[in-house]
């Protein structure tokens, strides 16, 4: 069939089963928007900033497991989208982002709104394309979805010059994709898997170290079964919260810079790390030379480059977590002796008792940890929790009772303030039956607050719980600990009227200073069909603990909660 490049884009999105596109139009992408206007197969949500469009597509992808789609124009439209691309790239989230580009004849002339989009996005996309020939467009779009969602998933950018979206050509959307140079390995090497199985049977203090790859691989059920069958204790990374379910007796907790004492001690004393879809990030390992000194390492990862990147690995296994765990279970089910690890489980139980995750609650002032626990009590497994970046994010990871994967959505790798609200909009669109709560800070929320308008226009009633400490709290905490309390540019005493702000944009606002007010406001907000800003005034100088200072060994944690 003959059609324009713009029509091809729409046809490809329809063929891929895309339900929602988040985007923002402009000159170079107008041909495509004209076709979007004419079709009824998918919805387009006009965010109020391109960064938010990409974060929303990202939140949609994280909540549903599908590929998120965003669309932007050339030049500033594209550059606004870069933070979104980088955020998705660092957390391996499958996205297809389509950007308009100036006409082919103008490329290289510093044309109006021309910027080298593939050049800028090369280091923050899994792959990108500048379409230079309409004959290639159908294949490029098909490949983009395939590459985004296969192997180690990630964002793919397709940059299309305006003349190509106008040009008419034959369209046949390919059924299959074959990229000769791109063949992810899912299966894992059977010899290595066998050796790893033997190591598990021989270990005394094995530890499951579960990362975000487990979520991306939809391997949570299997990993839970694996842990249950072997009775091996488990620690989760920030990206893996929810994989085990917090009521799981084998879950020790989250590890890393703000991980629990028992989790970090488990990592420091284990004799065999079984790493599933985790990548030994510096926020997890602390000082590398002191990291897991007594452990052999089994590293299961879909990306070979993650293996051996930071730590030496004894059993490297390139493959998909689901497939490899299944094979491991088959190999050990006959010989596993769960008593073998009993002493180890007891040691860890004692560590949990010694220093549980805790805080000093107060009757005078709301504690942010209490607020999060209370959301957990009221909503528990029914909510999807998104977050921004800072103390509130760490408290949410520590204190919310996560029950399942894809319930917890945060920018773990890049740490992008401003991610939470638009990601919540995307998550809510992807899972409309769920209550979606963005646990955010008074700094972060302002970075994409314009999305109040989007949320109101499209009736996407997400709840922003602003844990308002009148500080860029996480930076303030570092200043307290490491900069002699010189609070350089972190004091946010000058505040907007959050309630009025929400109302001005068609939303609803609550000011909250007590436990009773919080309960009442949250219960009310859940019933509303409006987006909400809940301005929760919390204690100003609360610190996130435990804390492993940067560069320190994982077992050297600051533990004390001294109220200031």
């Amino acid at each position: 069939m003959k059609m324009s490049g713009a029509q091809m884009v729409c046809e490809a999105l329809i063929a891929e089963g895309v339900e929602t596109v988040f985007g923002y139009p402009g000159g170079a992408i107008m041909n495509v928007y004209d076709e979007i206007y004419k079709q009824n197969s998918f919805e387009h949500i006009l965010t109020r900033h391109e960064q938010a469009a990409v974060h929303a597509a990202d939140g949609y992808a994280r909540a549903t497991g599908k590929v998120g789609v965003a669309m932007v124009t050339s030049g500033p439209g594209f550059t606004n989208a870069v933070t979104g691309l980088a955020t998705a790239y660092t957390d391996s989230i499958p996205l297809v982002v389509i950007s308009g580009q100036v006409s082919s004849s103008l490329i290289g002339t510093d044309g109006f709104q021309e910027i080298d989009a593939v050049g800028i996005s090369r280091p923050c996309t899994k792959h990108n394309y500048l379409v230079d020939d309409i004959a290639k467009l159908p294949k490029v779009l098909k490949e983009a979805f395939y590459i985004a969602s296969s192997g180690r998933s990630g964002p793919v950018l397709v940059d299309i010059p305006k003349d190509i979206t106008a040009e008419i050509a034959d369209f046949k959307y390919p059924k299959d994709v074959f990229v000769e140079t791109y063949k992810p390995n899912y299966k894992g090497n059977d010899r290595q898997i066998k050796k790893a199985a033997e190591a598990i049977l021989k270990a005394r203090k094995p530890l499951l170290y579960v990362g975000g790859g487990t979520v991306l691989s939809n391997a949570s059920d299997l990993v839970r079964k694996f842990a249950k069958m072997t009775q091996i204790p488990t620690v989760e990374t920030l990206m893996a919260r929810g994989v085990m379910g917090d009521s799981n007796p084998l879950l020790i907790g989250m590890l890393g810079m703000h991980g629990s004492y028992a989790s970090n001690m488990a990592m420091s004393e284990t004799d065999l790390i079984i790493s599933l879809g985790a990548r030994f990030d510096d926020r997890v390992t602390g000082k590398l030379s002191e990291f897991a000194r007594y452990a052999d390492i089994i590293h299961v990862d879909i990306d070979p480059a993650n293996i051996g990147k930071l730590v030496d690995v004894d059993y490297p296994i390139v493959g998909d977590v689901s497939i490899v765990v299944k094979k491991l279970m088959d190999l050990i089910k006959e010989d596993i002796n769960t008593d073998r690890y009993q002493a180890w489980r007891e040691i860890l139980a004692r560590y949990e008792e010694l220093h549980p995750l805790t805080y000093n609650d107060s009757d005078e002032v709301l504690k942010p940890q209490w607020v999060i626990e209370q959301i957990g009590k009221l909503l528990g497994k029914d909510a999807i929790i998104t977050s921004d970046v800072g103390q509130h994010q760490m408290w949410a990871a520590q204190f919310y009772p996560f029950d399942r994967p894809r319930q917890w959505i945060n920018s773990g790798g890049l740490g992008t303030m401003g991610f939470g609200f638009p990601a919540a909009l995307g998550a809510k669109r992807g899972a409309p039956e769920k209550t979606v709560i963005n646990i955010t800070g008074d700094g972060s929320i302002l970075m994409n607050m314009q999305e109040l308008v989007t949320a109101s226009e499209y009736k996407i009633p997400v709840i922003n719980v602003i844990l308002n400490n009148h500080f860029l709290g996480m930076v303030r905490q570092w200043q307290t600990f490491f900069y002699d309390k010189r609070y350089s540019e972190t004091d946010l005493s000058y505040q907007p009227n959050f309630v009025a702000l929400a109302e001005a944009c068609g939303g609803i606002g609550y000011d909250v200073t007590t436990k009773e007010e919080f309960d009442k406001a949250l219960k009310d907000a859940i019933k509303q069909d409006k987006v909400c800003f809940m301005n929760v005034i919390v204690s100003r100088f609360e610190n996130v603990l435990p804390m492993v200072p940067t560069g320190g060994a994982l077992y050297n944690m600051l533990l004390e909660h001294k109220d200031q």
Partner: protein
Amino acid sequence: MEDVRRVISVIVMNESSVLARVSGLFAGRGYNIESLTVAPIPNSDLSRVTIVTNGNKRVIEQITKQLHKLVPTLKVIEHEEMVEKEMVLVKFSSDQNIADIQVLCEAYNGGIVNAGEDIIIIMAADESKRIEYFLEAAQRYSPIEIVRGGIVAIER
């Protein structure tokens, strides 16, 4: 871990911006490029990029893995048993002892490739290490300009 020198061949699709992907990877991740050559592979839609780099074992392993991860990369060869050659062009004044220069070039698989009124141009092609010896020896004839070609390698 001590640094080692490695010659790596990357076979990639011959498409636009593929060289930027390869070189960008080195720049972005802080890897060293000592030399880089690129040319299409005859009768195919592929190109061969030959890179000389150095780094410790972990860095070299990361380089090969990261190169392999690039979507247009077909194959990454970390050379061990290879024949490696580099070409160099050197300009001398024709006042120099041309016969001596000619003999020197021949010892390094080369010869005079252009002789003008005022200058002669020679070529030599050999292993990089030997090209360095050659250039040292050539100093005595006061070279006017030296152009090194970067390394190409083929597995034995």
